[in-house]
């Protein structure tokens, strides 16, 4: 029995090591960095300060105070959460029927449709965003067509580029597969006899959906929502390219701190808040999933 237990730990060693090296350690480094001073030329200042011949630990709460000094960061966080929630909801509404349709179609069609869902992954993420920039561009076909129609009914021309709409469209476009795939995996496993049984016992098609399929698919919805919500929360590439000046999200500010302002400690503070938010969302999701 003891040998067996020992074996079990050995098997979990690689994933444990992975988590330790690539998650726990960087998080710890980031946490420590959030209490340090920024270096004179970027990066971090030394740990210790030489003061009249003595070494003193040089840590500060300044960075965290700065977070709370203005409400700008709170507003940015809330805005990012808003985009993440909106993207998740739109992906859910669009992805659910798609996943259901794929899960209920014949085996041959199913593989083909799944391929179509995964197809965008075959080209680079940035390239695909640039493609959207072309589509949304003021001289692009979509904008011209839209403005042509709006002009007919006497409404002013609109720009699609650098707007929340453009951002949202692109966020949904990029993250839809992350909603569809876990949902499909869940829906595909449903025992169809259960739907027959529900019908047999008097449930019409709407009640079959809302009383059987929907509640049983909640774990899939939770998984998909987490997979969409978290990357959107920290997203910076899409707001950078499509968001314009008003489109920045918290991810952009973090990137800015590390790359442009060279203020690593404050970047670490913002990253910590983002990480804690993400972990909270995952915990909330798994708590909702555990509840019957």
């Amino acid at each position: 029995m003891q040998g067996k237990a020992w074996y079990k730990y050995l098997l979990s060693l690689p994933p444990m090591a992975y988590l330790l090296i690539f998650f726990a350690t960087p998080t710890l480094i980031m946490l420590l960095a959030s209490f340090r001073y920024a270096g004179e030329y970027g990066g971090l200042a030394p740990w210790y300060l030489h003061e009249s011949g003595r070494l003193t630990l040089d840590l500060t709460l300044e960075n965290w105070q700065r977070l709370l000094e203005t409400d700008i960061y709170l507003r940015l966080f809330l805005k990012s959460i808003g985009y993440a929630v909106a993207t998740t909801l739109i992906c859910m509404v669009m992805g659910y029927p798609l996943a259901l349709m794929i899960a209920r179609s014949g085996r041959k069609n199913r593989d083909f449709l799944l391929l179509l869902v995964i197809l965008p992954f075959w080209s680079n993420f940035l390239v695909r965003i640039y493609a959207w920039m072309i589509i949304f561009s003021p001289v692009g076909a979509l904008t011209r067509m839209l403005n042509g129609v709006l002009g007919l009914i006497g409404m002013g021309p609109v720009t699609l580029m650098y707007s929340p709409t453009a951002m949202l469209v692109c966020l949904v476009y990029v993250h839809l597969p992350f909603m569809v795939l876990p949902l499909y995996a869940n829906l595909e496993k449903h025992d169809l006899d259960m739907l027959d049984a529900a019908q047999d016992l008097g449930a019409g098609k709407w009640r079959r959906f809302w009383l059987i399929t929907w509640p049983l698919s909640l774990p899939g919805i939770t998984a998909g929502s987490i997979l969409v919500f978290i990357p959107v929360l920290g997203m910076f590439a899409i707001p950078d390219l499509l968001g314009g000046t008003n489109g920045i999200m918290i991810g952009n500010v973090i990137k800015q701190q590390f790359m442009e302002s060279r203020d690593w400690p404050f970047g670490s503070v913002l990253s910590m808040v983002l990480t804690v938010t993400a972990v909270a969302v995952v915990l909330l999701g798994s708590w909702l999933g555990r509840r019957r």
Partner: protein
Amino acid sequence: MVLFYAVMEITALLEIVDVSRHFDDFVALDKVSLRIEAGEFFTLLGPSGCGKTTLLRLLAGFDQPDGGDILLEGKSIISSPPEQRPLHTIFQNYALFPHMTVAENIAFPLRMAGITKKDIQFRVAEALENVRLPDKVRHYPDALSGGQKQRIAIARALVNRPRLLLLDEPLSALDAKLREQMQIELINLQKDIGITFVYVTHDQGEALALSHRIAVMDQGRIVQVDVPERLYGFPNSRFVADFIGKCNLLEGYVHEQQGDSVTVELDGLGMVHVCRSETKCVAGSRCALTLRPEKIRIAANVSPTGDESHFSGSVHDMLYLGDVTVYIVALSNGLLLEALLANSSSGRTNFFEVGDFVEVAWSCDAGHLVLE
């Protein structure tokens, strides 16, 4: 006679008229007609692919026939969807809703029927009492054993009193001991509540044990409909004889028929006399004498009575089954005959060994002639 049919007309609960179903080139059901009376335990029996499950799905409404009609209490139900038919199905894998408690599962059909919360509570409790699981109200299905799931599925299907209960091999997922126990429970339940059961199985033993009447199906057609004893004792074809229980089929010609007394010339064995025959046969036609192993007497020296046929042979193989021993006897012409000997009458466990010379005999009314 006219009056009798008039009565039949009123009591037939379910009438299946010339129902056909094709899947591309495959004929799943070929003009099947059946009448099932109210209160009956009726079984559709046949090998896999015979069309019994297809017929059940047509009754439930999950599938539409290509031809024919299905009448429930004289009214066609073909155009009503499954949710509007006053009959319920027990699925092979029970199909309980895993996200609902036992009580919620049983309440489901009542909720669908728009029954008030108070009545639902009362009837769920009553249904659980009926299947003797009143303490499982708050359990989820995955906390139940196979037999318990089965009983909950039955309670759920019966709770709003359907006119008909369709059961699709409901016991096939249970182990042998539990299956026997559930068979007895099913018989008692059906007797107590008096709802008509239409039961599908490929297990002939189960069909014989449970049913009032059995329809034997093969290749999309109904071969014979009868009560279990008649089906076992008087099969109407080689297929039924072979499918229901163990059976020796002795091929031959009808030599002569006089009333219920038939002389048959068995291939390679010669003349045998069959008395009290119920089969109408024409002299010269092919036939087979069906002989159940337990009707064959086997002894070192059978000393036959006047109306017995007897042959000699040797023990070719034997199967010791505890209560009985099955002897495969090779007759002088090479034909293998299966005979049963109960191990009860003597302290000995084996009467014969492989290779022993034995004699077999059966009385003239032991066999039954089939023509098809």
